[in-house]
């Protein structure tokens, strides 16, 4: 993977950007999913947003990716409103979906080349060379002709990351990058995210409930609980949190005699 930086910086040499979230609220009818969320992702850092399933992490990512509109509050990139950024296409965002969201009717090569082809960024020969190089960097050689359904979960995530990187994004967003993976493959994905960030200094936001991921590669970590973020931690301060929700999240206890989802005995 030694050439990652070279491939990326050939065409673009931009400074890392920051993400600002200010009093963000999202509700579906009367149900408030995110309430008064404020945070800042510093340029070039990895920010990990953690929280239990159903806490609104993916909704937050959709808002940031511009796939849905907030009910109130402001999202901005380098102090510029997200709507304006989307309209002018000033910054490129690569979103790596939980499922990979690869195009099932296309080969892996066409999946990776789609963005470059449709935006007419390079000629076909250059696209071929970039895709091939990216595949070999992510140790995915020899799969260009395969269909997404022929890949394992870990490979799909890596292809999705390759697709995101080929966009040469200013911001990389990850939705549960280690879910549904065995521990070793999950570790390799964590290494990859950390390595890419170190090499390319792309501002990265990872949504996950993987504590190991957060503590290994996160520069800042926030925990989402019932639509709120109470505090923002570093990997060092996270285990020392005094909040019971955070402590329970990091070290959950299992009580087989009293499952927590059952109603209390009358």
């Amino acid at each position: 993977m030694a050439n990652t930086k070279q491939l990326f910086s050939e065409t673009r040499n931009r400074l890392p950007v920051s993400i600002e979230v200010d009093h963000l609220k999202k509700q579906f009818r009367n149900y408030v999913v995110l309430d008064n969320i404020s945070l800042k992702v510093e340029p070039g850092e990895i920010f990990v947003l953690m929280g239990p399933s159903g806490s609104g992490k993916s909704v937050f990512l959709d808002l940031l990716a511009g796939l849905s509109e907030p009910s109130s509050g402001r999202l901005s990139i380098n102090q510029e409103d997200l709507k304006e950024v989307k309209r002018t296409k000033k910054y490129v965002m690569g979103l790596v979906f939980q499922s990979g969201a690869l195009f099932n009717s296309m080969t892996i090569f066409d999946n990776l080349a789609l963005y470059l082809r449709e935006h007419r960024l390079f000629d076909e020969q250059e696209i071929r060379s970039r895709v091939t190089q990216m595949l070999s960097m992510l140790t995915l050689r020899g799969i260009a002709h395969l269909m997404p359904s022929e890949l394992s979960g870990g490979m799909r995530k890596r292809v999705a990351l390759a697709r995101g990187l080929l966009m040469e994004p200013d911001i990389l967003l990850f939705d549960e990058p280690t879910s549904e993976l065995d521990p070793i493959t999950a570790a390799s994905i964590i290494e990859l995210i950390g390595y890419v960030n170190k090499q390319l200094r792309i501002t990265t936001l990872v949504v996950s409930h993987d504590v190991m991921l957060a503590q290994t590669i996160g520069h800042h970590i926030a925990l989402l609980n019932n639509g709120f973020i109470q505090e923002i931690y570093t990997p060092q301060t996270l285990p020392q949190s005094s909040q019971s929700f955070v402590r329970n999240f990091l070290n959950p206890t299992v009580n087989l005699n009293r499952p927590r989802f059952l109603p209390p005995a009358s």
Partner: protein
Amino acid sequence: MKLLQLWAFIFQLFFETCKELRYLPRQIGRCFEQCCIMGYQTLPIVGILSIFMGGILALQTGYSLSKLPGAQSFLGSIVGLSMCRELGPLMTAFLLTGRVGSAITAELGSMSVYKEVDALRTMNLSPVRLLVMPRVVGGLLMMPFLTIFSTVLGWLGGWIVTQSVNFISINGAIYWRSLKQYVDVESINDGLLKAEIFALVITLISSAMGLQTKGGPREIGTSVTRTLVQSMIAILMLDYFVTKVLL
């Protein structure tokens, strides 16, 4: 309310598709692919259905006209006009709905459910340009060919019946002469105009249903069913109004 929202979305999709037509040269490969799916692969079923449709029409009409002496000589014109003005475009539209419309909804629906459409959006690529416009163009290009094919095979079906059924006492030459006498270019054009309107409606409804699908596999199935129902109702209603205007 939901129906109004759907039709508002269909109109929005129509205008967006018109806007994206400027990218047609770059999407020519995708359009060609859709032409193959909609045209070439639909041809056999259109052929079979149309031959039988023409045959049944000749059979029913021939039987009724056998009670009126000399009236069977109009069989060619009846089958000819019915096929080119009405049954050709209508049956082709129904087949396109069942075979192509449902496939479009299922494909776009699964792309929506499995976030592929969202992936396009995050890549600053318009789903309308890549997914809807080629299908609409494919439908508009292929529908006239399918309709002409259906009409001609319907005429042939009618002719085969006149030659093989005892109670129809006209020969082939009379059948074709009567058909030629009454079927003019205007009738064929009217049929083709209807076909184009139907193609537009089918591709837009099925694309809209697909893009609006949320949930999982069950919702994809529901969207396909809704596509069939909405398209068929729209086709029949439009058929009535267009016919009224054209007559």
